[in-house]
Every structure is written in C-alpha cells, then in structure tokens.
C-alpha cells in the first residue's frame, strides 16, 4: 500500500464525509430520511465543473477558479433543495423519503439527456483540483459549523422536530422552517461534496449519482449512529475505507457490504455511537446521564411500591 493509494482513500472518505455531515443534520438531527442526496451531489458536481472546465475542452465551460466552482456548486444544490422542500416537506415521513428518491433518480435521468454535459457517456476533462489538505480543511470547517449549529437554539429546535413534531409546534417551533433549513444546509453540503468529487475523479457521469450512492450516504449516517457528528465522521471514514480494504476480494466486497448493512439494522440499530459524541463534553454528558439513570433506578427501588417503576425501564428504542 503506497501513499498515493492511501491518500486516494482518504480523499474519497473526506469527500463522502462532507455530504454525510449534511445528511447527518437532516436525518440524524431533524429526523428526515432522504434517498436522493446523490442528486444534490450531482448538481454540485455538474455546476462546479461548468464553472471550472476550460472553454477549450467543453464549449460550455467557463474556466473560472476552483473556489468559484465550490460556491456555485453548493449554492445550486441549495437553491434546488429549496424548491424540492417547498413541494415535499409538508408530506409525511415515508412520502418525503419516496419524493427524494424520485428527485434523485429524475436528476440522474435528466443529466443523461443533457448533451452539452456529455449525456450518459459522461463528461471528461474536469480539472484535477481536489487536494487532500483542502478537503481536510473543508471537513474541519463543515464539522465546526455543524457542531455550533447543533449546540444552539436552532439545532435544538431541529432535534425537537425529530423527537416529537407536534410538541415542537406547540412549543412555538416553526417546524416547516426548520425542516427546510436542515434540508438546504444538507443539500449545500452535498453540493460541495459533489464539486470535490468531480474535481477528484476528473470525469463525471450521471450514473455515479444513482440511488445506490444516496443509499450509501444514508447507510453511513445510520452506521455511525443517528444524532452523532462523531459517529458520522467515524462512519464515513470506516465505510469508505472498508470497500477499499476489501478490494482484495474484488467482486465479493459489495456482498459483504450489503450483508453488513442488514446485520447492523438487526443487531445494533443505534449505530456505532448511538447519539453520543466523542468529545470531552459529549462524554461528560453521557456520564451524567448514566449517573442520573442509576440514581433514579436506585430511588425507584427504595420507594418500591410507592412510585411506579417506569424509571426501571431501559431507554427504549
């Protein structure tokens, strides 16, 4: 294993992480499930490429600097997500899921028919701009933004929406607005990830952004544990590296992958981190929570008969 190879895996993991972080906000913290985020990645990748590709390779290319591509790709995904949100966010749980699936597939099929981008044959000649340091930098910024957001009233309102939508509403939380905010932020993250992906592969093709890709992102979020940023980071790194490590088995690796997904669902549905954070304050919180639970249990036992025993029940799924 040489450095170039490892670097490649790290870059892919870093790129995946950007969109996984966004999806983590939407799915892990706000409780909305999307099977269409590859669509936002595709929008980011194509719009980003449109900005940076030199006009001499593709007539449509603008030959602008990379950072313009990043901003444009993220913004385009964000704008599209606003309209998708307007249409779908008032739908109930599973229908939102289905709608995002439809959006993702429709985006891919539309791109198949856009001939200036090469249609289904793909678009070569995207400049190689994604470097490991830049990706790591964006990852760090993305994590910080997200962590700040979660530990604020805005983040707490999103979590409240996930926990109990009706109670959130009567607590004065504009549920639609917060769902929309989470969706737009997650789409921008996915769009930016798409730009980096395109400028890493130097070749983009609609089928790279299929439903399988969307599913993969959601699986990473769940694998890491819903409602945990550190879980998403671990999940993105492990699950991007895993298929690569299994590459020795070549054709069997995706079989293992599928089997692993089922295994996680049936055996450890809370994911790696189960809503905990691997930070000093996160660990302290988990400890306090555990202590409080033990105390409550001890007290309930002491008052046995006087108090009802619901404190004895574990934290239900």
């Amino acid at each position: 294993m040489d450095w170039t190879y490892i670097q490649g895996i790290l870059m892919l993991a870093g790129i995946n992480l950007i969109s996984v972080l966004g999806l983590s906000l939407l799915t892990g913290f706000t409780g909305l499930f999307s099977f269409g985020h590859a669509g936002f990645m595709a929008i980011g990748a194509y719009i980003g490429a449109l900005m940076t590709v030199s006009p001499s390779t593709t007539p449509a290319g603008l030959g602008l600097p990379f950072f313009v591509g990043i901003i444009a790709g993220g913004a385009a995904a964000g704008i599209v997500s606003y309209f998708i949100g307007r249409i779908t966010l008032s739908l109930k749980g599973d229908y939102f899921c289905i709608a995002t699936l439809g959006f993702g597939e429709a985006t891919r099929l539309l791109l198949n028919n856009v001939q200036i981008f090469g249609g289904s044959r793909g678009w070569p000649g995207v400049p190689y701009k994604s470097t490991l340091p830049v990706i790591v930098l964006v990852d760090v910024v993305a994590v910080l933004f997200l962590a700040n957001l979660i530990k604020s009233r805005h983040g707490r309102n999103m979590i409240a929406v996930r926990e109990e939508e009706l109670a959130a509403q009567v607590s004065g939380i504009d549920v639609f607005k917060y769902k929309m905010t989470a969706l737009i932020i997650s789409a921008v993250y996915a769009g930016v990830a798409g730009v980096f992906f395109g400028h890493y592969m130097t070749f983009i093709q609609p089928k790279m952004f299929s439903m399988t890709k969307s599913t993969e992102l959601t699986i990473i979020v769940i694998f890491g544990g819903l409602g945990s940023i550190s879980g998403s980071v671990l999940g993105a790194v492990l699950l991007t590296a895993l298929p690569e490590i299994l590459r020795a088995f070549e054709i069997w690796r995706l079989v293992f992958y599928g089997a692993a997904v089922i295994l996680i669902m049936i055996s450890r549905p809370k994911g790696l981190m189960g809503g905990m954070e691997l930070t000093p304050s996160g660990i302290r919180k988990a400890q306090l929570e555990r202590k409080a639970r033990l105390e409550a249990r001890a007290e309930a036992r002491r008052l046995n008969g006087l108090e009802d025993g619901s404190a004895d029940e574990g934290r239900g799924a």
Partner: protein
Amino acid sequence: MAAILEISNLTKRFGGLAAVNDVSFSVPEGAIVGLIGPNGAGKTTIFNLITGVYSVTSGDVKFQGQSIVGLPPFKIADRGITRTFQNIRLFKNLTVFENVLTACHMSAQYNLAETILRLPRFRKEEKLLYEKAENLLSIMGLTERRDLVANNLPYGMQRRLEIVRALALDPKLLLLDEPAAGMNPDETEHLMNLIGQIRKDFKLSVLVIEHHMDLIMGVCEHIVVLNFGLKLAEGRPEDVANNPKVVEAYLGATEEA
C-alpha cells in the same frame, strides 16, 4: 376582569360528525377554568382548535382581543398559548434539562450566521437560556433529575416536566390536558397546589381538562361542561356540580369509565 380567551360559536366537523358544535365560553384573565365532560365530549378537540393543531370549521377564537383562527400552531404559541398533552409528548430521548432548554428558544434572537460563527450575541443569549432553564427546573423541583433522559422519568414527573416545558415559553395562557391522568391521590393533590402556585408565580391564566373531580372542584373558579360536542352547562363549581343535566351526563359516563 377582561377575558384573555374568548371562544364564540366554535364548531369542528370531521366529515359529517360535529366533534365540537357551536361552543362559546371565555377564560377571564388570571382565572383557572375547568373543561369537563364525558369521554368523546370534544374537550381535547377544543384544545386542538385553540392551538391551531386542527383547522376551525366555523366560529372564532379570540386571544387578548385578537382572532387567532387560521394561525399555525407555532404562531399561536408565539402569541402566548401553550399546552400539555393527554398522552405525554416529551422530547423523549433528550434529558430533562434539554427538554426545558429547547423550549426556552423564544427568549433568544440570535440568527443562523451568528450561530455557526459563535458570535458574541450567540454566546451571551445562549448563557441566558441556560440560566433560564436551570432556574425553571429549580423552581419546579426537577433539578435533581436534570440529566435524566425524559423517557426514564417516573410517570408523574413526566407530566410535571411537560408543564415546565410549557412554562419555558412564558405563556399567558396555559392549557393542561388531563394533567392528573394516571396519578395517585397524593400526586393529584400535589398537582392541584402546583397549578395554583404556577398561576400566581407566572401570572398566567389556565384552562384545564380533567376527570378528577376533586382537582377540578378544588382549583377552578369556573367550569365549562361539554357533552357530545355541545356546551351542557357552565358556572361556578358548586352550581355545576348540582346541575341535574351534568349529573345525568356523568352518571351515563361513569358506567363506561
């Protein structure tokens, strides 16, 4: 005393069925009003209509003199009406403290950009929110349980936490939907005192749905009785208790209860 909440000719139909039919009553400022009636009388439906969870078929709901019909629930909460639920709806996987802290959100103004960049206003207001939540927990005697996940709280405490969460919004009118359901007589009495205390300390008006007659008779100044979506009677507790129509409706109901 001026009325803080005025309900006039309120009607809600589900298909052909009128769950609430032409009901009018009002809650005077600072009062504790009880809403009673047999199961299916339309009590919770009225709460859902006041808080905007259901759309009003016809009639009007005025809060502090202004109609709130057609407003979404979060705007109604913003105006100063909050509620609890019959089947407790806490943020189950959050701790007691987080439940209250979340509901304190309206006391802060900082925006998204200030949040992700942790600008001074964010930090200042966030500190105030933490203080406010801690303060509420200590007033309501939940400080010891602050780090417990809401789901692991004993039942009676869950009900109390729901009230604290509602108070965190600084409401002017608090709607309590069967706050004593599932409580033993001791807890019920404790709750009764608590409701009176809250009204005094937080200077608010209360509308409470309850089946425990002790609680209703002990704490309410005014009672509205519903039956099959219609208003059956209203008045002072002792008058309502002696009203033959009310007695009849309740005798019919006690058998099925």
